[in-house]
């Protein structure tokens, strides 16, 4: 049997020029019992690497890890069910959503506050203005004299028109 292909592959293997597929061919070749004497010394390397690939964690390792992760989950207040959770893509706009909500709430509160302040201020101002107008109107009706004099005296002294009663 011609082992030239295997010999070539092996040479390329030492030079790190083989692909992963070619290295798999070499491993498969050296796993068989009937390896020619010229290639036999190299067999031990591949057999040893096969053994190393079959090294595993101890049997209880997985259970220990799962219990550790479950403990962590329960410490987090049971937000995750066991060791399982669902990942979700969160967009930038969605991350900012709480800020929008806070800004909206502040705007509503400011509007209500402003409206309340305005209405309270108007309640105080309107009766004073109304009282002033009522007084001026009644004095206008009561004043005796020519219309020119009346308007002149009202313009000059809009509030102190009580003097006209004494005339």
């Amino acid at each position: 049997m011609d082992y030239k292909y295997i010999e070539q592959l092996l040479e390329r293997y030492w030079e790190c020029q083989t692909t992963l597929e070619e290295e798999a061919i070499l491993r498969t070749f050296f796993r068989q019992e009937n390896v020619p004497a010229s290639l036999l010394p190299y067999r031990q390397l591949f057999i040893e690497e096969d053994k190393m690939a079959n090294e595993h964690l101890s049997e209880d390792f997985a259970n220990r890890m799962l219990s550790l992760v479950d403990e962590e989950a329960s410490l987090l207040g049971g937000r995750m069910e066991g060791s399982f959770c669902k990942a979700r893509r969160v967009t930038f706009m969605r991350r900012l959503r709480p800020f929008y909500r806070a800004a909206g709430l502040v705007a509503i509160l400011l509007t209500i506050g402003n409206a309340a302040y305005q209405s309270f201020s108007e309640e105080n101002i309107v009766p004073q203005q109304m009282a002033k107008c009522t007084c001026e109107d009644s004095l206008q009706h009561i004043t005796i004299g020519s219309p020119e004099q009346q308007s002149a005296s009202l313009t000059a002294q809009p509030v102190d028109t009580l003097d006209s009663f004494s005339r």
Partner: protein
Amino acid sequence: MDNISFRTTVLPLGDRLFRLAFRITMNRAEAEDVVQDTLLKVWEQRSQWEQIDNLEAYAFQVCRNRALDVTKRMGRNIKSLDVVDNEQLTTDNGLQSIEAREQLSLVRRLMDNLPEIQRTIMELRDIEGRTYQEIAQVLSISETQVKVYLHRARTKIKEWIINT
């Protein structure tokens, strides 16, 4: 990545990480501790997985760094447990079996005595079947450097095999 879970996404990395940690620490118990720390760290960072290109390569990177920390902290060069096992086996088996096991353990011993970076690269390439690109990513070096280290390691092993 819609559904992720520790059991299906992180835990299956365990054996591969263990072999890498074992190759560096050369101690089974310490390697398991390293894997435990690594898996927990990877799981804790699950909210950032979308920013990681290759989760497995990232886990290998974390595992290697932890294993190196452990080795540095212990400040010792531990013999591989398998080598110890093989040394013990030579006392109670047949002559042919002893020779076979001895020979295998010598290859293993030679591999264990390679510098850490060469050992790690051999582990990732020859045992885990990783591409040069992935190995370069794990070790934060170039693909050319990976090939240089691997070439040195394979050459040493080839020379040893030819000379024995």
